[in-house]
């Protein structure tokens, strides 16, 4: 594995991303979007695509920049710092990785940012791909999908969907699932936006006899989890990176506040009780950042064996983000609880990120199993 420190190229990428996001997607943009009822700013996404971010995982032969997982993680971390919203994770990371192996015609449109994707897997309250029930029943040369999916990130705005459906077996069987790549405007598909606490695009999607053909199948019929795995792993790693950046973001905001707020005639940052809590949080964030870097490196060098490190990253990032926002709001005191102040945005996104693509328990169990526990 390559070194866990940033290379020179990565440092440049990080600095460029931070500069761009600070200027064009600071926290105030999230507030503006929320107040306007928008999930993200399409013009911002267009600019991200122009910089190559939409094609970060798309092969150069399909017009992408093909920068790799660690680079995608660095972009995600920086987006997490300012809570910049975009279809980056769903489209540029998850879909691009799920479609790479099949050299899909849609990769070029992902890279240009014109087409955005959403991943429709979960049907219950907890992430569990194997539990998929939504049947895709054979019908002539094709399939008919009937059922529902929930908590579909970017589901209301996406132009295409990757849908995991059951073609054989029972819910809980890891085999018997098939991954479909279908147009979001296809007949029988009904999208119902969820008003999520983080003010982003999540949706419930109902399938009423939606037609799919053999050409819509990604990978092999009945082996959809294998086709999905690269996308899911990449998404989990990038989401972990976002949560790691989010933790650093709220922490920086909190440290700034500790240095400036006065009470009892002193700067509150001089109180040892608060200093020690801030220092402990620093330690947790540092330890998590290492897991993030390792997951990115592992995906770039040996993706088939990277799941343990990816799950380690997602587990750690989930816990660290929860701690960071709790400590952040607590140390801000009453002002941290107000909607006028930005701390709450971090808290809400951290909670959403904690659930999406597998919570702490889901990923810690994968790590433990790999360690023989």
């Amino acid at each position, binding site marked *: 594995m390559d*070194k*866990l*420190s*940033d290379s020179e190229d990565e440092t440049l990428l990080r600095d460029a991303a931070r500069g761009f996001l600070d200027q064009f997607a600071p926290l105030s943009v999230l507030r503006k979007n929320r107040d306007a009822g928008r999930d993200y700013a399409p013009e911002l996404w267009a600019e991200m695509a122009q910089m190559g971010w939409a094609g970060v995982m798309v092969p150069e032969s399909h017009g992408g920049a093909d920068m790799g997982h660690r680079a995608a993680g660095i972009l995600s971390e920086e987006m997490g710092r300012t809570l910049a919203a975009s279809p980056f994770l769903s489209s540029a990371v998850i879909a691009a990785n799920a479609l790479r192996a099949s050299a899909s015609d849609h990769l070029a449109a992902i890279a240009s940012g014109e087409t955005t994707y959403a991943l429709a897997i979960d049907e219950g309250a907890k992430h569990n791909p194997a539990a998929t029930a939504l049947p895709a029943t054979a019908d002539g040369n094709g399939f008919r999908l009937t059922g529902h999916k929930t908590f579909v990130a970017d589901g209301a705005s996406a132009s295409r969907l990757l849908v995991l459906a059951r073609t054989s077996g029972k819910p809980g069987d890891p085999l018997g699932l098939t991954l479909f790549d279908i147009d979001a405007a296809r007949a029988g598909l009904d999208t119902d936006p969820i008003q999520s606490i983080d003010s982003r695009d999540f949706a419930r999607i109902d399938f009423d006899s939606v037609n799919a053909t053999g050409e819509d199948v990604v990978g092999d019929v009945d082996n959809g989890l294998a086709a999905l795995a690269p996308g899911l792993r990449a998404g989990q790693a990038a989401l972990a990176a976002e949560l790691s950046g989010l933790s650093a973001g709220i922490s920086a905001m909190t*440290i700034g506040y*500790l*240095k400036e707020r006065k009470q009892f005639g*002193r*700067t509150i*940052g*001089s109180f*040892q009780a*608060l*200093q*020690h809590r*801030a*220092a*402990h949080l*620093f*330690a947790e964030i*540092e*330890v*998590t*950042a*290492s*897991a993030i*870097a*390792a997951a990115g490196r592992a995906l770039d060098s040996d993706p088939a064996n990277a799941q343990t490190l990816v799950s*380690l990253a997602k*587990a*750690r990032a989930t816990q660290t983000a929860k701690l960071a926002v709790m400590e952040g709001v607590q140390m801000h005191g009453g002002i941290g609880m107000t909607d006028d102040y930005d701390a709450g945005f971090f808290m809400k996104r951290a909670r959403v990120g904690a659930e999406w693509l597998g919570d702490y328990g889901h990923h*810690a*169990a994968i*790590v*433990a199993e790999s*360690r*023989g*526990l």
Partner: protein
Amino acid sequence: MSDPLENFRSEIADWIAANLPDELRGVPTTEDTICWGGRNWVFTSDAQRLWLERCAERGLTCPRWPSEYGGGGLTRGEEKALREEMTKAGAPSPLQSFGIWMLGPALLKFGTPEQKAAHLPDITAGKIRWCQGYSEPGAGSDLASVQTRAEDMGDHWLINGQKIWTSYADKADKIFALVRTDRDAPKHLGISFMLIDMQTPGVTTRPIRLISGASPFCETFFDNVKVPKEGAIVGEQNRGWDVAKYLLTHEREMIGGGGGGLTSGDTLAQMMGTLDPGTLNDPVLRAEAMELEVDAMAFALTMERYKDMSEAGQGVGHASAMLKYYGTELNKRRQEVLMSAQGSNALDWEAGSAADWLRSKANSIEGGTSEVMLDIIAKRVLELPAK
């Protein structure tokens, strides 16, 4: 095999295969069988002596040190390959000592050519065993308040005072100590870093028995001890604090990173076959074990990342206090989970790992308490204000 690192790896694997005595292969070392070397060292076996001599000859007791002082002159990548090949072959560490971990790095940075030549080869060969004389009664983590006095008597220093928590002082040949050479200077500016032979008349030690039953720590007394001036002080006179600070950073990384007693005892994964069947079916224990594995793996990666950052010139500086803080707290948690997993089997002094569990409680006290580490992070890394 054109990759030089791979060449080195296969070369060193061959060397280990040819030189590691069979009876040491795959036998875990314990507190009693770790080789510390020194004038009074009694080898546990001929094999232990042979292994030390061969490794020292090849520069493997201090792989990264310059070869002119008996080191191996290896790069970090080579050292890592060496470590991996040693582990693969089931080879014990040939030598451990405070000379390797602490004094050596300080001499390499601050020592005169004469001091390096006088001390480093004896450390790499395991001929001289050093101990560390920092803490004093009443000083605790406030190291700069040392009171042990060194008076300038013309051709020698006259030392009077007392040190405490001097690990293995009763077994050491020499001590590197912080002594006050200027009582009028400000707290941090009147201290010198001094090398003293433990056999000098007036030096006595007394072990301190710990709750774990063992007594690695001692009290050390200096009663009119005469130290010849030649080569006694490392670094500048009265600027010993600079040397001490540099050393403490090393110590923190070592304790936090598993060099200093943290590797004693197994991980839960290694212990799995020895536990009563179904032990981990208990949901509370299982959850604790899972959380521990997650944090332990992430911490190991952090050690790796910090090393990579140091090498890449992205200095980590005071953030090394984080390694000490996190590593020691993590080890205490690990010992706690291991005790739970073993149940009553752990409670037998002879058979169980209770001694490791008891010993681990000191991890967050020695080498600067966890609270001191948090202070360092808050003030030096986060730059939180004093008022």
